């Protein structure tokens, strides 16, 4: 999957999870940048990403993510 496609799909996911049609994610986006991205929403985000991309994450994967860029890389590796 081309990087552009991944980010396009991630935008859809973020908009769905955070109920915000204006959200646009970039590699440097972190939890601090998105309204409502707390630990509870983080779990929901990861599960929605799994479903949307057809991937499965391990607990270790999810814990260490620093920003959306690392998430995008993770998706690429798990596909």
């Amino acid at each position, binding site marked *: 999957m081309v990087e552009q496609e991944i980010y396009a799909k991630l935008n859809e996911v973020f908009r769905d999870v955070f109920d915000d049609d204006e959200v646009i994610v970039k590699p440097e986006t972190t939890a601090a940048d998105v309204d409502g991205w707390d630990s509870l929403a983080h779990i*929901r985000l990861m599960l929605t990403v799994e479903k949307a991309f057809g991937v499965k994450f391990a607990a270790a994967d999810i814990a260490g993510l620093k920003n959306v860029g690392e998430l995008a890389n993770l998706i690429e590796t798990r596909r």
Partner: protein
Amino acid sequence: MTDNLYTALGWLPSPPTDFAAQCRALAQTDSNNPVDLGKPIRRLASRSLDENQLIRLGKTIVAARRDGRSLAPLTPLRLGIIGNGTLDHLVLPLIASAARHGVALDCVVGHYDQVLQEALDPVSEINSTKLDAVLIAVDYRGLPLVAEPGNAEQAQASVEAALRFLDTVANGIRQHGNALPIVQTLAPPPETLFGSRDAAVPGTTRSLVERINDELVRRVATSDSILFDVNALAQTVGLANWHSPSQWNLAKYPFADTYLPLYAEHVGRLLGAARGKSRRVLILDLDNTLWGGVIGDDLLEGIRIAQGDAVGEAHLSVQKMALALRERGVVLAVSSKNNDDTARLPFREHPEMLLREHHFAVFQANWNDKATNIQAIAQALSLGIESMVFLDDNPVERNLVREMLPEVAVPELPDDPSLYARTLNAGGYFEALAFVAEDKQRAAFYQDNARRIALQSQAGDLDAYLKSLDMHITFAPFDDVGRTRIVQLINKSNQFNLTTRRYTEADIVQLEADADNFTLQVRLTDTFGDNGMISVVICRPSSPTLDNRSTSAVADTWEIDTWLMSCRVLGRKVEDMVLCEVLAHAARRGIERVIGRYVPTERNALVKDHYAKLGFTPIGEHDDGATVWEMSTATPKPVEHFAVHRNGFDVTLPA
């Protein structure tokens, strides 16, 4: 396919593509024209929403409530949740799912993993908030289940300790929080120590959980707690699917997130049932639903219902399910596009049919559109449109009814008729909290009543007709035997209900204990059979603050707190007879005046003039349309046509 049924709530139609926009539109306030939001919210909720959509709708409902918008006609209910895992993620999906079942839910979660504290501390957050019910979401990890495999004594002690724990929690909630406990059965993990042997070895998790569940079900059935059979739900989708080790490790989710909409839906059903919102009527299409083929074209020889024919057996399974539902009190009706005679032919002449004409309370076979038919069925049964479920293989018909009558539940059906019965059943439209003898006969009652209504229109002279019914009415105070049915009526009656006050069984017990209150349960039989309990009345001494015309220190006035009746017995002067009985008892106890109150709701316009018709004098009206009436007890007016019987009163009255 089956997985989709449960994870994606396959019996519900898909949400509209502009779902998010519709939620936002609900939030817009037009302050010049405040609209009741309950109906549009329920319509949006009645789709197969995923977790994110449930959250979005839940937020909409919470915001609407916070902005002071009316959520009528959704019925309010305040729920607390305590448990041993993460529970916060349940709140918004529960609120949205409750709306699907006609309930405006307010939901608060106790502190993380503080089950005992929340239940036993009289000033805990859960106990200090005025809640109607508390969901005890404890799973097998939250119980002291410690036993060596094979150690029967330890196993016994462990089971007892677990049950004691749950009892303590439930009692704490009842006593300190005055709320109804909702108790969950335990879903065991799929892992076993031996394999098949686990069930037989005391002390294995499998065996402990099974014994606890058995005893739990028995205890809850004889209490006023509500049972939530999570074990059955988990087994339906598969224990290995239900339990997600990674999600427990990561976030302490008690069950896999993919089942959140399903879990919330099942809690929504229970809450809806508690508020009298469960459906009561199953309306069936005929062609390609109850049999394979079209009777008008394929004729008796060509329709498929035979054993040994896969298609035939599929449709027979729908008939079997309908019959079983009827056995437990669901009313059956037919709505089919056919000539009447043609439609009745298989019921009359096909040897393999399980359903026969006499199983249906109403049979509408004609060329009208089905929405019109369904309305006619509702009218014939004196039941609201929201009581109806409509099963039809044809998506065009399904969508028509959804458009024209959004309050009717219309399950989506898959292409394969083998799955029709399973899909209908998965929809859980007829959830019930209790099962009393009268429920079994309910379908027959409705049939008899439909017959009576038909007869009455032929009868002409009302008095002669009433006499011909040979009615016997039995009055008694509330008692243990009638209590379950009384509580059921109090919580289910919507149309003939003057004040729509809902009481739990505990409330009723308390009410009975106060000798100043007057309670009345009324039963009626006639030539068609036993109607069972058809009216419930509660009178309380009128408090001086409500009634500023009373000058005596001792109460000389009763207020009718609750008066409800079954719509089945309307038009027979039963109301007059019940009033006569109330006045007679009141006079006996030195009461001089009886006050009645009409509190308008969306469903009870039927009884707006009830007190006027009975000859009460109006004494007040409030801004919200509530009216207050009074009548002196000096002039009871007995009604002819009734043979009167009494049980359980400690005074004798003239017969």
